[in-house]
């Protein structure tokens, strides 16, 4: 029976009322008296030397407050990179300077070269057009393999070459892996592309800098998934403002998908310019600017090989990946193709030997960083494609081949350095087989064929790592940040609570689901709990929201803080009830003495804490407010099995998704409706990557898909109704809620299912097609059939 509140209830998202009725408070909704506007003059050349920038005529234009160029930022720190990867020789990655405004050279289309601050945005744009910018164009470096060839033009003159790092994982396993391939009964290999994507959150990025001359305080309002991280990076590494003089506010944020994790030039600029101009300075990205200034995602080119023995057991896996970094290192870019990708290459399988090689490459393109799933979709896609291909080559059932190689005993230490705590891969596959009605597929295929269509069924599994922790481990791996989370629980005198979390909600529904947890722990109504996030001035230092970490890490911090609250409240209750603390029980919002009918209500205890007339002042302090920081012992490992059925029109190559089923194991679940919504959104984005989205550059470094006229976003009519189940639950063993995280699963698990299905459909028509690169647009599918 569904609960009507607390953990496990599908409570309606309380925040949606304001989002859907126009009452949200997004960064662009914030306007400060006297505010000026900045327009960035961005390079329309991918690679070139700046010969001169003449701002004289522009500076004299109406309304212009001040024009900034790179020379205004000499001596100011550049954009920092938050993760240092060490290469296979033990050397640190090559790390180029990343200026706020271009200095000397431009390195990608969209790089900001000058910034015009004016009274109105139109005045700023007019003046920007009057800037005389002379750039000597250089050959653009676009293709990753060409970028690594001898004699290639260098993106950064002061680096040795265009190679950021050459990473081997686990380098010590390499020889054993190679030997296993020599002894293999069968080797399946596949070369594939994980296509570059543009995140396209509904709300474009916005930054508004404000400066209080009287107190020397700076404030930045920004569209961020992690305001504390921005405050630390920008304050300490870019502008030299100590945290106590810098406040960062990320109010309502309309979608992030990773691209709002990173610290961007525009944020630093607006904060800097507000002080320099002594006026608030606002920037609102246009959609066109977003395409060339938001960090892109994915962009891997991979060769993967799977070795099997004569009994079809996986014996070794070997991959070579080129990962595009773009022109500069975005905040967490180096970690994505390494620690968030290589560590997941075991997938759901007990392959004993794995070697992953990743070459990260600089090119004259927009920087690439985390996008929903971040590294894990890339790992899942290649692994599940090569397993599917192996099944086809060996003539065995792809589900049976997977089941035969599943990890079944937990905890399980993979050969790629992580330990899965729990999982039940047969369980989710059993569930999927039931949901997918595979037995009925033959009849559905026959029906499709009667209508002149090909039908294919694709299945795959996935494993992901959420939570991104513990801090001491990620520190060893090169993270320049801790990855704990924080929460302060403040109980008010009349019993209501405010939870100030270091996590950040930008669409995930934390204001609802986090409140459910606290309400359940105390036994009170959810509406007595308010969740506050997004403002460094009123939340404890936290690391924000990405990597499906919020409930697993931030939720755990909140549980710990609430436990402290309950412990103290029990002490107060024991005093009020004149009973031993050990005998006090909390149930349904009341403290009682075990075995008696004596009890005191939650509200009476909280009132006593703040009106301590009858209170054990000699033993405990008044008040009821606690903070906890939680640093997990391990990642969490959600997993699942997905199935996709497609129809392919053989005359046009058009793929239609007819059925899609997802069986996930997220451990315990707080709000099933929100989880279902997260999975729906993730699958939609995964199908977007698989069928539609294609961020493409030409050989001159010009972005070909720079607007919605050419960049295809998934729309409702591109998608079927999804069949989503998360009843398979193996709780996480190392966090107090037993939760694993669900935000990225859909985007990780769905692309291989789609491609597997399309290959199956083409094979059913006798086409010798083993792979088609994403997106599987009609022209590509048709070409593959010819």
């Amino acid at each position, binding site marked *: 029976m569904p609960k009507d509140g607390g953990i496990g209830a599908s409570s309606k998202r309380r925040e949606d009322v304001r989002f859907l009725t126009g009452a949200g408070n997004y960064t662009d909704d914030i306007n400060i008296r006297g505010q000026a506007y900045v327009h960035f003059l961005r390079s329309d050349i991918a690679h070139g030397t700046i010969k001169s920038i003449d701002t004289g005529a522009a500076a004299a234009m109406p309304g212009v407050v001040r024009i900034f160029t790179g020379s205004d930022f000499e001596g100011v720190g550049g954009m920092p990179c938050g993760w240092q990867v060490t290469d296979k020789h033990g050397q640190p990655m090559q790390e180029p300077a990343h200026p706020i405004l271009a200095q000397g050279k431009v390195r990608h289309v969209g790089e900001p070269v000058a910034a015009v601050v004016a009274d109105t945005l*139109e005045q700023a*744009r007019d003046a920007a*057009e009057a800037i005389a910018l002379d750039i000597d164009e250089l050959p653009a470096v676009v293709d990753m393999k060409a970028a690594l060839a001898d004699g290639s033009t260098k993106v950064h003159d002061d680096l040795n070459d265009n190679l950021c790092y050459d990473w081997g994982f686990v380098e010590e396993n390499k020889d054993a892996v190679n030997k296993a391939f020599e002894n293999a009964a069968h080797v399946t290999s596949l070369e594939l592309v994980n296509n570059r994507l543009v995140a396209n959150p509904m709300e474009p990025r916005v930054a508004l800098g404000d400066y209080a001359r009287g107190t020397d305080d700076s404030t930045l309002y920004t569209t961020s998934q992690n305001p504390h991280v921005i405050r630390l990076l920008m304050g300490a590494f870019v502008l030299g403002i100590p945290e106590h003089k810098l406040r960062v506010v990320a109010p309502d944020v309309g979608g992030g998908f990773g691209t709002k994790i990173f610290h961007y030039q525009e944020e630093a600029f607006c904060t800097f310019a507000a002080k320099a101009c002594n006026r608030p300075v606002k920037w609102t990205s246009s959609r*066109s600017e977003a395409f060339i200034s938001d960090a892109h995602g994915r962009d891997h080119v991979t060769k993967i090989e799977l070795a099997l023995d004569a009994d079809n057991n996986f014996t070794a896996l070997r991959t070579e990946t080129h990962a595009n970094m773009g022109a500069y290192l975005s905040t967490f870019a180096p970690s994505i193709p390494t620690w968030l990708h290589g560590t997941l290459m075991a997938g759901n399988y007990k392959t004993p030997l794995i070697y992953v090689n990743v070459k990260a490459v600089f090119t004259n393109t927009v920087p690439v960083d985390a996008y929903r799933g971040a590294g894990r979709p890339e790992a899942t896609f290649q692994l599940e494609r090569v397993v599917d291909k192996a099944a086809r080559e060996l003539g065995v059932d792809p589900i049976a081949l997977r089941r035969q190689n599943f990890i079944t005993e937990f905890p399980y230490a993979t050969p790629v350095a992580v330990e899965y705590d729990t999982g039940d891969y047969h369980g989710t596959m059993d569930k999927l087989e039931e949901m997918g009605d595979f037995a009925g597929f033959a009849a559905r295929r026959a029906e499709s064929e009667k209508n002149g269509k090909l039908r294919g069924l694709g299945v795959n599994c996935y494993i992901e790592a959420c939570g991104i922790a513990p801090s001491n481990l990620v520190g060893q791996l090169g993270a320049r940040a801790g990855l704990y989370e924080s929460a302060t629980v403040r109980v008010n005198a009349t019993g209501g609570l405010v939870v100030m979390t270091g996590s950040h909600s930008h669409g995930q529904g934390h204001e609802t689901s986090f409140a459910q947890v606290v309400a359940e722990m105390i036994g009170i109504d959810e509406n007595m709990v308010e969740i506050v996030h997004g403002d460094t001035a009123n939340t404890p230092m936290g690391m924000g929201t990405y990597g499906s970490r919020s409930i697993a890490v931030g939720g755990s911090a909140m549980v710990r803080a609430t436990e402290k609250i309950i412990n103290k409240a029990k002490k107060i209750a024991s005093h009020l009830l004149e009973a031993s603390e050990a005998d006090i029980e909390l149930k349904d919002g009341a403290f009682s003495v075990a075995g008696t009918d004596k009890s005191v209500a939650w509200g009476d205890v909280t009132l006593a804490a703040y009106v301590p007339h009858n209170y054990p002042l000699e033993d405990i302090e008044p008040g009821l407010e606690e903070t906890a920081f939680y640093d997990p012992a391990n990642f969490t490992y959600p997993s699942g099995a997905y199935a996709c059925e497609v129809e392919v029109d053989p*005359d*046009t*190559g*058009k793929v239609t998704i007819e059925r899609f089923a997802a069986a996930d194991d997220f451990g315990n679940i707080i709000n099933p409706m929100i989880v279902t919504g997260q999975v729906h959104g993730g699958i939609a984005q995964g199908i977007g990557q698989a*069928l*539609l989205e*294609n961020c*493409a550059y030409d050989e001159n470094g010009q972005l*070909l*898909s720079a607007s*919605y*006229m*050419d*960049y*295809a*976003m998934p729309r409702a009519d591109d998608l079927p109704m999804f069949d989503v189940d998360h009843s398979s639950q193996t709780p996480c063993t190392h966090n107090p809620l037993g939760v694993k995280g669900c935000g990225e699963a859909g985007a990780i698990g769905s692309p291989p299912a789609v491609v597997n299905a399309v290959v199956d459909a083409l094979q059913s028509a006798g086409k010798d097609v083993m792979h088609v690169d994403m997106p599987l*647009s*009609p*022209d590509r599918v*048709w*070409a593959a059939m010819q």
Partner: protein
Amino acid sequence: MYNFDVVKPTRIADAVKELSDSTESQPLGGGQTLIPTLKQRLASPDKLVSLSAIDEMQGVCKGDDGSICIGGATNHATVAAEAGDYPALAATAAHIGDPAVRNRGTIGGSLANNDPSACYPAAALASGATIKTNTREIAADDYFQGMFATALDEGEIITEVRFPVPERANYQKFLQPASRFALVGVFVAKYADGVRVAITGASNDGVFRWTEAEAALSSNFSAAALDGLSLPDGDMISDLHGTGEYRAHLCAVMTKRAVAAAA
């Protein structure tokens, strides 16, 4: 956007005068192409002459010869709702863009712009429509002159478009996945004196007639009549969404489908 003036005349003559007053003026239909262009600062007219308040350019009616007459400033949603006597034309209008586009965009605006991937040029060319302007009448065969190029003179306004109603017709659009314009769109219309086939989206020269298909269909109006016919891919658009070869192939597929749907 740069600054500009907007005038909204209520008579064709006034609109023509407003346009002739300034060489930098531009007529504004529904603005579905022009307004985004202005927003991107890719055009800088000093004056926009809106045609939307001119009553005599609004609406759908039937001519004495049975043709469908559509005022140049009539939006697509109105055509979809009121051109029921020419069902294939109404259906074409009903599937242009999205509801916002259909309630703002106009037939005159679409034909004057002559986007190589727009739907209306295929309908007009396949129907042998007559484009009536403030100064003359232009046969569709003479009107379309390549990508974004038409027979219109500077300051000339499309006041009405007349479509002879065919015995049978159908428009098949294969969507470009991002813009949902026609990657290839084929309009087939069968008249008593022959079949016309017009194709949009495919060619570097804009909308064109596929005369071999027309000849084959005029003697045998069936999809089978098209077997073995193909278009050369040399003049086809090749871009992110499809090669010339793919577009040439789609032309044949969509023509067959249009014939099958019309038959």
